[in-house]
């Protein structure tokens, strides 16, 4: 078990009447790549700004290596940040931007210059060292911003949606560079984003936030396959949520009866619900099977086709369940072509019970 680098202990942040972050408890380990994800206004950037000392918690404590950080001003922390706007100093060139942090620490000019050039080289933009930052491309600016934050060799790097201004191709390249850099340096990255693909592609653990609360903390796989609640299930996208009442339950499985039928599902690590309790389950759109005739198995839903969305190799089908609710299915385009569903008005959907996860109501 790695050591905790940062601890959030019942942290609350209020701006006037508005509560941006509500009783937050979680720890960030040394050397971990953690992503904080959520829709805008969920408190993720406020959380990051509290780490950098730009906001002070209204209640609770933030500890870094055991030391309480609440009152420590930003310039006395070693928590460099890569900003959404990059915030490069426009009147300095690339090298001078990178040197800034070293200059503030009183490093002599020669060492400053050498270290700045080393970092620019490491990030493959050494040749642009003497260029005005305004003359660099988006990706190059990004690298200058990274070099500027990393040159002081911090224990933790904060990143506030740093890739949101780049185009899709560049995002992928920067993602692999960031992951590689984090592995090589072995320092903690705290990455705030609203993009699921960025968070899932890079992070060891993801914190999902909703309206100032932590909705779930877990590995990307856990969050994707076993969302803890309805918010997470909906936020991570192509999931179907079906409601009902608990008919019977064992330590591992639950049988849920609802307007769409009776379904068996996986309880996972969650506590066993009481019989008759209102509940829901999640079934991911890419974990279901389709057929034109009624299959002889459990967990079957009879649907009609509403529309389809073709995005390359994967097709999303929007189906309508008998009660009028929408049911999404993701299949490979090739599979769909083989199935010949065009000439049928009924589509049968089935899934294995261990793929369906029980979540609490609400």
């Amino acid at each position, binding site marked *: 078990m790695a050591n905790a680098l940062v601890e959030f202990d019942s942290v609350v942040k209020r701006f006037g009447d508005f509560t941006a972050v509500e009783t937050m408890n979680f720890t960030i380990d040394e050397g971990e790549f953690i992503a904080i994800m959520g829709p805008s206004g969920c408190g993720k950037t406020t959380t990051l700004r509290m780490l*950098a*000392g*730009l906001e002070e918690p209204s209640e609770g404590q933030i500890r870094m290596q055991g030391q309480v950080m609440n009152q420590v*001003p*930003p*310039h006395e922390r070693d*928590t*460099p*940040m890569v*900003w*959404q*706007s990059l*915030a490069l*100093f*426009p*009147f300095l060139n690339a090298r001078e931007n990178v040197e*800034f*942090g070293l200059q*503030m*620490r009183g490093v002599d000019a020669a060492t400053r210059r050498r270290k700045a050039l080393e970092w620019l080289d490491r990030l493959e933009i050494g040749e642009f060292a003497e260029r*005005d930052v*305004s*003359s660099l491309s988006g990706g190059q600016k990004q690298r200058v911003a990274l070099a*500027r*934050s990393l040159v*002081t060799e911090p224990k933790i790097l904060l990143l506030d949606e740093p890739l949101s201004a780049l185009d899709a191709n560049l995002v992928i390249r920067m993602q692999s560079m960031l992951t590689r850099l984090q592995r090589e340096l072995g320092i903690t990255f705290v990455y705030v984003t609203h993009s699921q693909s960025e968070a899932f592609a890079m992070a060891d653990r993801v914190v999902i936030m909703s309206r100032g609360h932590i909705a779930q903390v877990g590995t990307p796989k856990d969050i994707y396959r076993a969302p803890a609640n309805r918010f997470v299930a909906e936020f991570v996208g192509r999931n179907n949520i079906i409601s009902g009442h608990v008919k019977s339950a064992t330590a591992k499985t639950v049988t849920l009866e609802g307007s769409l039928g009776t379904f068996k599902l996986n309880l996972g690590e969650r506590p066993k619900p009481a019989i008759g309790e209102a509940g829901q389950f999640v079934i991911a759109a890419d974990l279901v099977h389709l057929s034109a005739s009624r299959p002889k198995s459990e967990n079957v839903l009879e649907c009609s086709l509403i529309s389809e969305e073709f995005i390359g190799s994967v097709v999303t089908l929007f189906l309508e369940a008998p009660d009028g609710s929408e049911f999404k299915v993701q299949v490979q385009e090739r599979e769909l072509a083989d199935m010949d569903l065009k000439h049928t008005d009924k589509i049968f959907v089935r899934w294995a019970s261990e793929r369906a996860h029980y979540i609490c109501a609400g």
Partner: protein
Amino acid sequence: MNRDRLLKGFLFGYLALVFVFIFAPILFSIIFSFNSDRFPTIPLGGFTLKWYETIWQDPDVWEAARTSLMVSISVAITATCLGFATAYTDYRYQFKLKPLYLALILLPPTIPLIIMALAMLAWFAKIGLSGQVVSIIIAHTVLTAPFAMAIIRLRLSQMDASLEAAAWNLGADQWRALRLVIIPFCKPAIISSFCLTAAVSFDEFAIAWFISGLNKTIPVVILEIVTGNIDPQVNAIGSFVFLTSMTLVIIAQVVLMTKEKKEKDHHG
């Protein structure tokens, strides 16, 4: 098509007329400053530099020029410092009475000059500062600081909101962030504001006339010459004042515009 051209022609003509109205008097003043005749009449007499020679040899004009220069440089420095401080306060802090604060700062240019000059005269007499160079400096600072504030405030509004926080984040305390980030970012605006406030102070007549006493500035001396008799040396001094002010204003414009153009080019 034809109507478009007609409209375009009309607008060009209109614009030309505006320029003629603005610049013709100045242009004539410059032309007559080189004219040998004592009275400004057409046809012109011969070319001469004698009016420039007269003012060159006139100790009163020299004295006034020295005072004007001293005043305008002092005013430029104090007004720009004040303007920067007020603009930065506005940028950085949110407080309850901010609209009132801004209104108070921007008030001086809206007061009729004569009223302000009279008020200044009365006030300086009361505190025993009347007729001194420092009183002209104070009065002109009050008049020009709002311009400095407006120019620097505009520049601050173009600044990335995270820039200052980024400096703190990299280990700069508030003073160093101000010195190493905010001031360098505002440098073009600071230079412009310096030139413009200097130009306004150099030109300003009404307040200077009321409170200058024996320490006359150039515009005051011009008026004194004109009230005595018609003398073409006024044209010579006028041309000199015009050239000085225009140079300052043009420097201010060029500094601001090249900076903006450079930034725009790279963003595009």
